[in-house]
């Protein structure tokens, strides 16, 4: 061995043999669908043709995995829409109906890991801005409790989203209608976005999601509530699968007190514009310059 030098030609020979055998092996262990998935391009770079192929592959994969036929939408943003949310702090009673309505609609993992996109925090009355007093494990027999106010927090769909800035692979971005979304097939699971979000709006699939088959929601959107994988980040999308079809998000419909409002910021007749014009409104952690499109207001 000593003194023997490999020529460039030898090296190339060896290397190509190794590569070929490697490819051959992976060809045996890997199915065509897996390879396609591996080679899938970024959602924003897909042509309509690519999208169709991807959707067909994903639907087949979900059918095999969950035994149910999914309909995956790739509906784009409607021109002239900018979605925003209003939440009436004087009405929220902290009952967490929204949390579970969201989990069910969006095919979130129920346990191991339990992933929820809405966190309802409880604050002592009169200290709304001291978030260090917040508690989200409260569990009384009845709500509202005297002396406390409740404040649901979820993705605020910032106009200037810090989570998007830090993503090293651009797996998350802001859609033209203002929704911050994730391509679960592009996410590498580095969780930079979780660290960057000042609202704790993102969660991570530490393990393969556990979703009861009978509770699966099969009307899904590619960027929204389709079942996720292990090792990807997911978050509230304002129910992209619903709002792009003109339907209220699931949390709006789950709320028993009518606390939650939703609408198009660019439509002067929308509910959200009315409350911006007529109510006392604030945005959470406004000083961070994230420009959230989630408005807390006081209806009373």
């Amino acid at each position, binding site marked *: 061995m000593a003194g023997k030098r490999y020529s460039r030609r030898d090296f190339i020979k060896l290397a190509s043999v190794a590569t070929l055998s490697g490819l051959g092996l992976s060809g045996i262990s890997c199915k065509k669908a897996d390879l396609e998935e591996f080679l899938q391009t970024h959602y924003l770079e897909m042509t309509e043709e690519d999208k169709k192929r991807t959707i067909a592959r994903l639907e087949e994969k979900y059918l095999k995995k969950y035994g149910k036929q999914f309909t995956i939408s790739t509906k784009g943003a409607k021109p002239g829409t900018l979605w925003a949310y209003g939440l009436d702090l004087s009405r929220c009673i902290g009952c967490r109906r929204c949390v579970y309505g969201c989990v069910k609609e969006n095919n979130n993992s129920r346990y191991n890991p339990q992933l929820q996109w809405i966190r309802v925090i409880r604050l002592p009355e009169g200290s709304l801005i001291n978030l260090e007093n917040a508690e989200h494990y409260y569990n009384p027999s009845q709500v509202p409790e005297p002396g406390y106010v409740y404040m649901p927090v979820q993705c605020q769909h910032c106009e200037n989203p810090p989570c998007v800035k830090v993503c090293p692979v651009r797996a998350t971005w802001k859609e033209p209608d203002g929704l911050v979304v994730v391509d679960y097939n592009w996410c590498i699971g580095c969780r930079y976005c979780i660290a960057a979000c000042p609202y704790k709006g993102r969660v991570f699939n530490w393990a393969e999601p556990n979703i009861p088959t009978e509770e699966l929601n099969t009307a899904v959107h590619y960027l929204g509530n389709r079942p996720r994988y292990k090792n990807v980040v997911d978050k509230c999308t304002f129910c992209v699968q619903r709002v792009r079809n*003109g339907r209220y998000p699931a949390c*709006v419909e789950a709320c028993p007190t009518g606390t939650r409002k939703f609408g198009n910021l660019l439509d002067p007749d929308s509910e959200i514009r009315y409350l911006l014009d007529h109510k006392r409104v604030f945005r959470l952690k406004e000083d961070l310059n994230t420009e959230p499109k989630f408005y807390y207001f006081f209806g009373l």
Partner: protein
Amino acid sequence: MRRIAFVMVLIGLFAFCWYEQGKAKQEDFPVPRPPFSEGIFPCSNCHAGMEVNIKRRELKEEHTNIKLKHGSISRWCLDCHDAANRDMLRLVNGDQIDFSHSYELCGQCHGPTYRDWKVGVHGKRVGYFDGGQRTYFLCVNCHNPHDPKFKPIKPEPPPFKPLYRYDPTAKTGQAGQTGKQ
């Protein structure tokens, strides 16, 4: 002369249609069926043959479950329920309105709330805000008109604490609930 009269009549008709349409637009909302107690409606089933007693009194035989906690000092049944037609409600001005229009009745006193409800900032709406059916919940879908304060309810369970979130023995969403709080 005849032509002028004809034109006047036409204009009148148009104006009437316009007015009617405007009125309908302003007052009709897509609301669900009012949440009647089971078997209680139509009220005329029982009330049709009864004599109307307009004297304010405590009801001892029927409707004893109704404890009025809604301005009870100044109000009683027939302020809102029409005495002549029990299947209708009654506005202060004497107009009869259907139970599905009860928001007009509530709006007589709760003006700002009614205004907010009409634009969707008070109350709850479900369904499609664009390209489909939308339902506006009635005031009485959430507030019992005889006792309107929203009652406390049991909250859904809190999230698991991180310690229990990955409990490998957990089989259901209830895991971790028995753990330390």
